[in-house]
């Protein structure tokens, strides 16, 4: 009986991870018009920083989390200057390939430093979870849901209530006009990368105790997050969140009721159907015809 709410809970938890990474995709896409193929590797890097800090160096867990998040922000800025900024005046393809190159570099850099063996991280909370009405609420999933919700709420406040948030929005809507008003466009894009890296890193840190920390853990998450952002309507922030959550739920139910081996396929089947029926996504506007 409690099967359905149980699956819903798990699905939303996993969906939150997709949503966070999808959000990172969308923010960078809106600021630069480029799909960042290394977005998933931000999660991988975040998780590995945690392994280094919490396991290898024995830094207290929650301090390690804070250090990891700050490091991710710095990493995002570095990524911008190394991978996007030199190509900012080019068409999207060279930039896309550049992000692919970055993805290869990051995965194999970590591989060289850490070897191929997957690492594991302990759960972040000291208790396994609660049982409410026959549904077991795993503490890690709860944490994921809470953190995602808090991040989305914070992001909303930041974008809607602060001048800096408005400047970031203005930059993503019209870079040239933004520069005419004296908004430092390059800095705004740097901040966007930093924030996207933090989102990806947080997703990696949160999901690490559920999965093994491996160099290609980001790839699968990123592909699903990408699918989620298309389903939501590419470039739309709300769409990315809703798409991510929906995908997590669909996948969990699909695995439970249809087929476990094809679990990873449901996301893409849904994506496929969406692209056929409603290519602009749930929240996307109709593709404008412009001559």
């Amino acid at each position, binding site marked *: 009986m409690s099967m359905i709410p149980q699956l819903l809970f798990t699905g939303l938890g996993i969906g939150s991870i997709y949503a966070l990474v999808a959000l990172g995709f969308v923010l960078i896409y809106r600021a630069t018009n480029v799909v960042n193929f290394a977005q998933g590797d931000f999660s991988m890097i975040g998780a590995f920083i945690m392994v280094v800090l919490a396991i290898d160096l024995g830094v207290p867990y929650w301090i390690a989390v804070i250090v990891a998040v700050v490091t991710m922000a710095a990493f995002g800025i570095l990524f911008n200057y190394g991978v996007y900024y030199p190509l900012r005046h080019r068409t999207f393809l060279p930039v896309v390939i550049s992000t692919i190159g970055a993805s290869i570099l990051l995965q194999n850099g970590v591989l060289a430093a850490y070897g191929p063996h997957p690492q594991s991280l302990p759960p972040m909370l000291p208790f396994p979870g609660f049982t409410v009405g026959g549904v077991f609420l795993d503490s890690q999933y709860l944490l994921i849901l809470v953190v995602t919700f808090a991040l989305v709420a914070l992001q909303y406040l930041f974008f809607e209530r602060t001048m800096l948030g408005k400047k970031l929005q*203005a930059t993503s809507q019209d870079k040239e006009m933004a*520069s005419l*008003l004296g908004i*430092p466009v390059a800095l705004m894009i740097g901040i966007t990368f930093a924030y996207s890296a933090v989102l990806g890193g947080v997703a990696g840190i949160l999901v690490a105790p559920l999965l093994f920390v491996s160099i290609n853990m980001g790839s699968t998450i990123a592909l699903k997050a990408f699918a989620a952002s298309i389903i939501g309507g590419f470039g739309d922030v709300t769409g990315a969140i809703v798409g991510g959550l929906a995908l997590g739920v669909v996948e969990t139910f699909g695995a439970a009721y249809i087929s476990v081996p094809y679990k990873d396929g449901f996301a893409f089947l849904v994506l496929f159907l969406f692209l056929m029926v409603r290519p602009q996504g749930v929240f996307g506007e109709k593709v404008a015809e412009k001559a």
Partner: protein
Amino acid sequence: MALLELDGVTAGYTAVDALNGISLRVEDGEIVTLLGANGAGKTTTLRTISGLMKPRSGSIRFMGQEIAGASANAIVRLGLSHVPEGRRIFPGLTVRENILLGSSNRGRVPRAELDRDLEAAFGIFPDILKFADSPGWTLSGGQQQMVAVARGLMARPKLLMLDEPSLGLAPIIVQQVFRTIADIRARGTTVLLVEQNAHMALSIADRGYVLETGRLIVEGPPATLLDNEEVRAAYLGGRVTAE
């Protein structure tokens, strides 16, 4: 010393965006208008001054400081505000947010001061006050033009450059926009105005220049320009030499 002075500025590569040695000046407190047909280089001139395009040669001095080649960002910080063609309102931001962002060139400004400036902007354009919290894209062309000018004024510019503020507006709105421009000057802001509607532009300007294919061909006060054969031709959109 002129507020703005261009000397032998060349820019652009194709015939539509080429400037072939433009020299002009704008004195403090003037309204100067730049006239010419489509593709004569008016927009390019403004884009080059505001730093969106880099000049290939020549000098651009603003308040005595060389600004040729500086970034758009740096130039607007000096107090030179450019309201580009097509209004360029941020569609996803509200009218109030659009106007507030106009102050981005001023560094840290106390909130109270921003609010005062915002109020003053709405004072100049009372018609847009009721749309203050509507997203930019919902406004009509005329309303968007007012937001664009208000946003430009939030920069507290010493020189305001307006590119075709009458573009696509109904005649009655055009008259209103021009009255406002005259009003802005009366409050102490110098204006460089690019227009296709030469008659309207010359009715409020102190001096005017006429551009043709990237070159200035005449300069003078409105009366002189209105008498000038070339201007009359340019103002109907270019010339065809007699057969």
